[in-house]
């Protein structure tokens, strides 16, 4: 475990030294600032708006961060041949993947935590109560972010970075569709589409901003099961990514 954590730390430091991450962070902060301006528009139920927009912002932030963090890690390592001395001697391919993933996941978690705290501060400044479910809801978005990281790593082992981002966004969109909506994409084969939809991830389970904004109580078991689902799917994606990586020749 220690080699993986050391490599994760190395990845973390490397990511924090990259400009792209700070660019994404600035976009998230500007979005939060924009959300903080909602009361000035005089809308009714402004607390709900702030929560709704804020959690939506975190959701999109999780997606952008996952792409920004992970889409270029392996291609860059391969292009610069940095991966070779690492895999040739101290680490196995599995340890390399896990180290890179954990490093990126820590950055994602820190960014989501900062985003969540920022949203709480905005709510408090504007005189609104912070819902009790806000932290678990952010936790779900974080699990979604980690799952997306795993997806981005999975794509990065067999596609180019320019293709990785649209494929991830496509999966993000498709995985929020209902079964009925998915069948409409290709109504000629409803059985196939239904099966396909069941196999594809269901990211809609992570998005609970509407019930939270409307003050609907969410059972703790829901959070637990949704997180378990997300983590299991993430592990599945990482396993496939590792299988592809292991089968690859590092030319």
């Amino acid at each position, binding site marked *: 475990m220690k080699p993986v954590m050391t490599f994760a730390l190395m990845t973390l430091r490397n990511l924090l030294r990259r400009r792209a991450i700070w660019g994404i962070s600035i976009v998230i902060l500007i979005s939060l600032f924009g959300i903080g301006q909602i009361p000035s528009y005089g809308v009714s139920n402004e607390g709900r708006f702030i929560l709704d927009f804020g959690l939506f912002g975190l959701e999109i932030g999780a997606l952008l961060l996952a792409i920004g963090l992970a889409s270029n890690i392996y291609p860059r390592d391969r292009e610069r041949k940095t991966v070779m001395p690492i895999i040739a001697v101290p680490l196995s391919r599995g340890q390399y993947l896990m180290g890179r993933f954990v490093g990126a996941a820590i950055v994602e978690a820190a960014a989501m935590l900062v985003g969540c705290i920022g949203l709480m501060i905005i709510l408090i400044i504007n005189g609104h109560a912070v819902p009790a479910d806000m932290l678990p809801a952010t936790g779900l978005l974080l699990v979604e972010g980690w799952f997306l990281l795993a997806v981005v790593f999975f794509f990065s082992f067999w596609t180019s970075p320019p293709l990785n981002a649209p494929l991830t966004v496509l999966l993000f969109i498709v995985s929020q569709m209902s079964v009925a909506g998915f069948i409409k994409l290709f109504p000629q084969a409803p059985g196939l589409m239904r099966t396909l939809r069941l196999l594809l991830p269901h990211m809609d389970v992570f998005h609970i901003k509407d019930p939270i904004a409307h003050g609907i109580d969410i059972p703790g078991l829901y959070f637990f099961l949704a997180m378990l689902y997300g983590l299991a799917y993430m592990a599945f994606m990482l396993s496939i990514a590792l299988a592809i990586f292991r089968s690859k020749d590092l*030319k």
Partner: protein
Amino acid sequence: MEEYPLQVKELEKCFRKKLGLSSFKALDSISFHLSPGEILGFIGPNGAGKTTAIKCILGLLKPSKGKVTLWGSNPASLEVRRRIGYVPENPDYDDSFTPIEFLTMFSSMRRLEQKKEQMLAILDRVGLSKWGNVRIRSFSKGMRQRVSLALALQSEPDLLIMDEPTGGLDPAARKEFRDIILAERQRGASVFFSSHLLSEVETICDRAVILSSGKMVIEGRLEDLMRTEDHYRITYIISDDEPKELEVEADALQKRIDDLRAEGYSIIAVNPLYRSLEEVFLSATDGGGR
């Protein structure tokens, strides 16, 4: 008795061309071994397959056929890989780190638990003692190569695999590298030294494997490779004169010796002629494989 540090048996590597309709054979059934404490030169023209072979040895490429073993085990085994130091060709490490940071992280990944003083000693050995805390971003190619060597030496490896390690170095730095390699051999390490700088191979290697177009064309002890079978040098002398030398073909050797004796000369020595490694290489690769 321990197995060879490195053994390659009938190694073959094919790469698929675009669309996967045809393939290109980068390595064609090469076999050799590296004995303990030996420096083996691995030479060949550009594109001969040297780096491909090294990547197969390190488990970065999967052989299409044949087998690579390190001390009799699979190169993928982490236990075996902990005994290796690898100096890649043109290393391009993450340049936002300093050499000390790299050594610290590699030490931890290798479970070495080295102290800072030990790391500074390694940096001193490779000539980077003043640069330990400077980001690699500002380093020249030669300095990056030194970082690479420091990382390879860090674990006191039993096997050093070096892929064109002196490519970007000036003559003085090349000499320093050679001295380090010889010191490593003295310590007991085996060295697999890939290069196309024949003078270096000639200076430090015990044996050489010559590759051309993916095939192994010659393998043997340098002395054997460089010794010609068909030309000899006769050293002869008469009374108090200076010794003289004469080169003759093998077929005419005995007759020439007899003639010299008949003329009153004393034969001091008859030795086979040695070619340079460059001559061996050019003749083995049909002028360099081009």
